[in-house]
């Protein structure tokens, strides 16, 4: 019996390249991916919740926790989002980084969360059909975190990069909403030719962000 792990979503595309990783079937690339915005499933990426009254004392993956709620920090494929006075979320967006989360203050939330990326042109035209969260707030410096309803579901959203209507956005919500969330996003993105994208598409977007 093959004990494989399943993502909360199955994107409606034909995978061109994929690989097995830690029990997950990770799609690296879908057919016909080029051009247009992409919706990428990153749910297999490890995620943690970190809570402590003295949260600043933690240096997960050698990084400092951002000072203020709403701020995020992205370094070497690790994204840390300061959620509140005592809480942060940590998303490992690159497989290259070893784990560093042994302290009991960390709770792994990989299994509980759907993590999607929207990358490419017009993604903020798509998101404004699904949420009133203000991703184009000029007073905020990327990356930044916003909490709120996205297609009526409580979500953590992180704007990694932004250039008018284009950019890269990460979105995390309860795993159970996976199917309906992707359906809602793909439906909203149809007029902008939103397509399923593989992990390589996200890696390329990250490279661009890193300059």
């Amino acid at each position: 019996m093959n004990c494989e792990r399943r993502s909360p979503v199955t994107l409606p595309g034909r995978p061109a390249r994929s690989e097995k990783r830690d029990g997950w079937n990770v799609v690296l690339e879908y057919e016909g991916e080029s051009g247009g915005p992409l919706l990428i499933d990153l749910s297999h990426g490890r995620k943690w919740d970190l809570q402590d009254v003295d949260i600043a004392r933690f240096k997960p993956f050698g990084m400092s926790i951002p000072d203020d709620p709403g701020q995020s920090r992205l370094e070497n494929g690790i994204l840390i989002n300061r959620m509140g006075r005592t809480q942060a979320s940590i998303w490992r967006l690159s497989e290259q980084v070893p784990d560093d989360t042994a302290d009991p203050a960390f709770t792994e939330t990989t299994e509980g969360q759907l993590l999607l990326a929207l990358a490419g042109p017009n993604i903020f035209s798509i998101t404004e059909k699904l949420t009133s969260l203000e991703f184009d707030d000029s007073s905020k410096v990327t990356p930044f975190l916003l909490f709120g309803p996205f297609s009526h579901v409580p979500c953590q959203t992180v704007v990694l990069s932004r250039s008018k209507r284009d950019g890269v956005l990460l979105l995390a919500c309860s795993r159970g909403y996976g199917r309906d969330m992707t359906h809602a996003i793909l439906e909203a993105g149809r007029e902008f030719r939103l397509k399923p994208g593989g992990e390589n598409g996200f890696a390329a977007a990250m490279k661009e962000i890193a300059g």
Partner: protein
Amino acid sequence: MDRLKDLPTLRIRTEDKVSFKYQGRALEALGGDTVATALFANGVRIFGRSLKYHRPRGLYSLDGECSNTMMRIDSVPNVRAETTSVKDGMNVEAQNGLRRQGFDPLGFMDALSWAMPAGFYYKVFHKPARIWPVAARQIRKAAGLGVISPDFEMAGRYDEIYPHADVCVLGGGPAGLNAALSAAESGLSVILLESRPWLGGFFDYRSKLHARAAELALEVANNPGIRVFTNAPVVGTYSDGLVTAFQRGSKADCFDERYIEVRATSTVVATGCIERPLLFENNEKPGVMQVGCAHRLARSWGILPGKKAVFSVGHDLGLEAAIDLADLGLEVRCVADVREDGQDPRLVGELQKRSIPFYRGWVATQAKGWNRLRSVTLGSVGGAHERRFDCDTLIASAGFTPVWGPIALGQTKMRFDLHTGFFLPERMPQNMYAAGRLLGLCDPASIEASGRLAGLEAAAGRGLDVAARMSAAREELEALPGTVRGSKLAMAPVKGKKAFICFDEDTTVKNIDQALSMGFDMPELIKRFTSAGTGPGQGGIPGHNLPLYVASSMRYQGEVRPTSMRAPLVPVLVATYAGANHDMAKRTGLHESQQAAGGVMERVGVWIRARRFSQEKSARAEVENVRNNVGILDGSTLGKFRIHGPDALKALQRVYVSDMARVVEGRMRYSAMCNEDGCVIDDGVITKLGENDFFFTTSTARAGVTAEWIRYHTRYDDWDYSIVNLTDAYGVINLAGPNSRKVLEKITDADVSNESFPFSCVRDFHIRSIPVRAMRLGFVGELSYEFHVPASFAQSLWEVLEEAGKELGMKNFGLEAQNTMRLEKGHVILGSESEQRTTLHDIGLGGLWSRDKARWKTVGAVALTHTEHQRGRLKLVGFKMEAPASKPPLDGSPIADGRVKGYVCTARYSTALSQPVGMALVEDELAGEGCRLPIFEDDCGGRLLYAKVVPMPFYDPEGKRMKS
């Protein structure tokens, strides 16, 4: 009808032919036509019948200001023909009794208007009460505006959008366009909402200003800082810069209508004016229309409003329209102007040049004709002189009404301005700025300048330093012509028997007089008593005239204010509010396999779950399989939490009624949470993971609020603990039945014997390579394991279990079977066996409450002390039906003995006992063993069902099976 050609202002595409049907008749329209203009071009003059009197009604405003042109379009009733673009294949039907243009069998109602005075509904329709149901049906049949079936499903594509901007400009006329440009040039992002399909406002259709409108529209289109939404009427304005609107889509759009919710720091209101109807006898006959309606009909759609027309106006735009329409071929019999003076002499000269008679201080007093206008009587405002003119069109307008709805929604008070004759805001709401005609400006340059100033004011409101530019803009505006003196005449010198102040509700001036004579002296009260302004036009037609007329009556001595505006300012389809309507539900990691196994899936709270796996509603086969063999259930929706930190135990002690200090590693403890009233709100199991580290489950329904509940009840204690919601992180599979251990033993090396893994214990081990946390629970009353597994592995574990259970005949079971079995076992489900007022004691769970931990201030403990022996509470009891062959009563059926004394919580047929059993909450006098419960059911026909209170649990009272 031939259209006017070669006008630069035309908005129709003559090469684009559109076919549609009206009353079954095939008609042709042109691209760019609305349904109303297309019908008018095809000779239709009667568009509808009025609500009460069934008077014929025609084209009046072109902007959907009243119900005159509401029609049934593609099976949707009450669609405004004036604002709906005609489309190929569209099916248009008249409504409200209009079978053919010239005849309405209910037309006689007009002659009975004397029998329906003001307040008719209030005074007549309450006694005798017995005739009301019959009368109501007949009245609805005669008066209803459109008919819709209760199961009607709205077709179409609906969408929603939530854009942000620094400035939101309402109105795409000259002021709005200038405001948008000046704000965008200041570096701000701007959203512009325009209700018509194009920009330009009242410049657009005027021969000398059309080019300027096009120039401004182009400039706006080329400005990357401005986002334009045309065909997008504003629905409401709210605090914090929230503006709601909706947009009508075209064939090229991905929506038919979409809801728009704009968040902006500043709002510029440049919504302009609508025309104020002139009140005279028969002022709503087909053939009577507003100046803008007639003018736009010709200039934008190439249709002359008639052949011979009389104008009765109160402003210079009326004179301009008369001249322009005369030049386009309309025979203008005369122009009457209610103003004695103040006209633009240039326009008066132009009328004279064309030999059009001009009557200063004259006004239309009566229109004659039934289905079509035949003649108009004009009279001097003083009432001394009269003249009659034959004509087929009367173009009438008393003056202007600013479209101040978006400002009024900001809770500002409106005050009458004597100079302009407008109701104007006493002060603008915060971060809202007004511009253009609604301020009383009429000069084109002034209107544009006021727009530029408002755009800069919005920029200043956003914190930009634009003081110098603002000062220059203000100086520029001050140097231009200011506000214009407006006509204040509300009423021609007539009795007003059929002078309609509100077209939608058939409210006449006489009705207002009747209300005044009965002592109603404020417009707000008169509105409610006479219904004026309560129709689908949202007060557009009567909104200004009603307070003016009431003021002229001198009955009310206070300052007259207009009636309140409320959102939606423009009626919106409910489907548009629903938007894309993504039904967001949660699915477990096992959803597909449940469905594939024939699961009947149901929405249960936020989750979709399998109710049963056959069409047999009681799921008896599933129950029997678990009782005698082994079954498998997806229980992933349970709430699951980790709580950790030095004060985690204290937090648990606070919210759980039991002593959480007794929770040890490797064992579970069942407990419950109460609210401050001692009423039970949740239950679940708690286990200890390590030092200061616990894992607990909650009911599915409470999972979403549990973390906040705990934080709320510990908010003043400064305790150091953290809580993480892991509900979705773990899939839960329940393996239950006497053979469940046999299945488990086949797939794990762990010792799962009763000795090593007894009831109420928790063990971590692997099944194949999958890590599981297994709990020995007995909710269904059998040997049972609950496997908590990382959600991504849930499907794999399910498949492993299925494979292992195959040779034993293991089958799925769903919620229905689980419900029956837990009922047999006497286990409660909170929400089914409890309600808002049910305490822990009431449902027999008082034993969970530890009285020794007072120092933790357990939530609900004080109330539990008080209610423990309180009389008069509903108590949970088990019952069996007296007739074992009878069917189980429906859940929720009242237990009634002269009066209601309780209700059935859950009742099902018990296979194990071969008779129906149930649980009920009953008054304590009925709670004793052996008490007889009379049960009433909706369809019992007076014959009550009888049950007898029996001890619980019904099944395996010693719990041998689940502990085996």
